[in-house]
């Protein structure tokens, strides 16, 4: 089995997780910028974090033979402080040419506040201005449906957005159709309690097809599983999906989306059963 982990917050994980992921068949890992579990107090704190994502963490992953890529942004959980948010957004362009940076993400909404919407719109404009791909975080639990609708509405009315270069992550049964019908890619996040279980994820794959879907573990400092994607592949096997179909979903699909950025380089050979 081979797979690409398109969404994992590896700065929060121990080196044993890298070893386990590579052993399970991981061929590349992508790390969107996110919230540290507490609010950073200054733009300098974000500058250091962006350096960590684009310099230190790729070196740590390389010790396990794993290519590491990053997405940069201000996470929506830190968007309420507009003055600090604007300072942080001004830092991002200087990092965009770094060799492992794939685009702007994970931007989006958390509690669907006016300030979150304002900063989301600014980061979408930043991505368009710099011709960057976009990775979008949708809110948690009771806030997801409303937030997903707000996000899709903003993206579809923003000039210059190509839906084929935008993935809207953390979809569930009540939001997946909204995202796919608008032409975007959709990410299914596999979590032990919230978001989606392997069985539900494969339900959605069977109902909506695999044309613009990927799976990710989004492992971070909270209750999460860095091996959730290969474990979901086992779930697909139990349901009778072929090895080729599994490979298309967990390797081919992230490769098709991420490969739109020429910086993303992994083995492109087709699976042969």
């Amino acid at each position, binding site marked *: 089995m081979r797979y690409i982990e398109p969404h994992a917050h590896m700065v929060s994980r121990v080196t044993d997780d890298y070893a386990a992921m590579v052993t399970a068949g991981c061929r590349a890992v992508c790390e969107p910028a996110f*919230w540290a579990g507490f609010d950073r107090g200054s733009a300098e704190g974000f500058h250091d974090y962006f350096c960590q994502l684009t310099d230190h963490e790729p070196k740590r992953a390389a010790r396990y033979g794993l290519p590491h890529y990053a997405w940069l942004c201000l996470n929506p959980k830190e968007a*309420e402080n507009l003055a600090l948010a604007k300072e942080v957004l001004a830092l991002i362009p200087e990092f965009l040419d770094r060799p492992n940076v794939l685009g702007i993400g994970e931007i989006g909404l958390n*509690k669907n*506040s006016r300030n979150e919407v304002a900063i989301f719109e600014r980061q979408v404009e930043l991505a368009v201005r710099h011709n960057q791909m976009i990775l979008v975080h949708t809110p948690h*639990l009771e*806030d997801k*449906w409303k937030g997903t609708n707000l996000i899709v509405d903003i993206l579809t009315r923003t000039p210059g957005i190509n839906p084929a270069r935008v993935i809207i992550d953390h979809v569930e049964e*009540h939001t997946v159709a909204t995202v796919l019908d608008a032409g975007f890619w959709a990410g299914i996040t596999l979590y032990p309690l*919230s978001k989606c279980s392997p069985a539900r994820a494969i339900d959605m794959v069977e109902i909506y097809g695999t044309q613009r879907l990927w799976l990710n573990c989004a492992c971070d400092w909270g209750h999460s599983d860095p091996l959730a994607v290969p474990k979901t592949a086992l779930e697909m096997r139990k349901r*009778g999906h072929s090895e080729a179909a599994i490979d298309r979903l967990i390797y081919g699909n992230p490769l098709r989306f991420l490969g739109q950025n020429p910086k993303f380089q992994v083995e492109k050979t087709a699976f042969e059963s």
Partner: protein
Amino acid sequence: MNRQGITDLYFAEARSRLIDLAAFLDRVERSEGPDDFRLKSLRAALHELAEPSPDKAKKILLLLSDPTPEPVAQAGDKSACGAWSGF
């Protein structure tokens, strides 16, 4: 996969979760105090399970969601609790 296959694969897990849910409600009802919006939402969602219609997961997720269209004035607490406080 046919219905027999799906049942073979998932029945034991679904049974376990169903009994966990029943035991949770027993635990709640042995305790004192009124239901808050989370428990009211959960009890409403249980009715969906008994309906002979498709898309039960989607309907329950919507029942537990904030249905309002406009952004809120301030984010306040960063975390979500799993049910809409206006239910």
